[in-house]
């Protein structure tokens, strides 16, 4: 596994929560959106264990309902716990991103 996908694994839950926060999505849409922002390393199937884990931890909820194109899809929304968790992940990410950026990017110069 590449360094990039190892790094991504740790933060993927946060990315998924952030997408679901913006709008309710179903699995296929979610994987498309991850690809669209440029996270091509996330193989499409990876999201299903993530979605199961987030549901188990009560951070998101799923509901089966008809999609725009007709057939039933399971749509996900954030729970209150999910919102709190996303806020915390964002805070932690900022605390990491700045010093890591200083070290790694600064080291290139």
């Amino acid at each position, binding site marked *: 596994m590449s360094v990039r996908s190892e790094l991504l694994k740790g933060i993927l839950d946060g990315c998924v929560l952030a997408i679901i926060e913006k709008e309710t999505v*179903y*699995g*296929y849409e979610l*994987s498309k959106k991850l690809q669209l922002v440029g996270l091509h390393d996330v*193989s*499409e*199937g990876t999201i*299903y*264990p993530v*979605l*199961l*884990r987030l*549901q*188990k931890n009560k951070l998101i909820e*799923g*509901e*089966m*309902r008809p999609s725009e194109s007709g*057939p*039933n*899809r*399971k749509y996900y929304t954030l729970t209150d716990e999910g919102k709190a968790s996303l806020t915390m992940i964002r805070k932690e990410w900022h605390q990491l991103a700045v010093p890591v950026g200083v070290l790694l990017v600064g080291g290139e110069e």
Partner: protein
Amino acid sequence: MIMTMKELRAENDIKRELLTEQNEAYYSKLLVYVRLQFFFGEHRAEEVLIEMLDHLLEGQEEGKTAAEIFGDNPKGYADELIGQLPKDGKRSLFSFCTYFLIYPFAGLLMIRGIMLLIFLQFKAIDQHIYLYSGIAFSVAVIIVYNVAGWLSSRGTRRSIFGEEESIRKSTVRGGLRGGLLIGFVVAVMQFYKEQGPAILIPWYGSLAVGFVLWLVSRVIKYKAVPK
């Protein structure tokens, strides 16, 4: 809208028909493997299975294969999914255990009733049961039923992702295990021969009680499965 297990499974059966042969083979292995795990949320499992199927169908339209979407290691992927399924609540685990006690016992009583009914047509048979012998025999049958069921489901799970061994080897092992299990029941019968007070349980009594217990086991099974 909450779909029941039955609806989810029916929808899955229909949609699976739309897969290409190659994708169907990949997906069906995942499906069987995930369904053969017992102690975790069955409903959640059926939901994620259908989500993955929908995803695969959409991917198929774009010319993707199941291996491209779910990876080259289907067993590892399935284990990852199972690891994230919720454990069913205690109540459901309790119901689950009760079911596996009652169901084989009900079967035993009904088979006894039917066998007696058939043989009584030809000759008179003593319809008494020695209480302790009867209990020991029933316990042995319940144990054997569950061990055999567990062994066979484990065997199926192992064989799904190509860990199959030669037919000869598995037949020999299956035969040995079968012999051991039957031997266990026979040994218990010998050890607890004609012990305890004799009680008359006529064929129709066996059949009726067995039938009622079978109904009870159906209700328990139905209740144990979240809808």
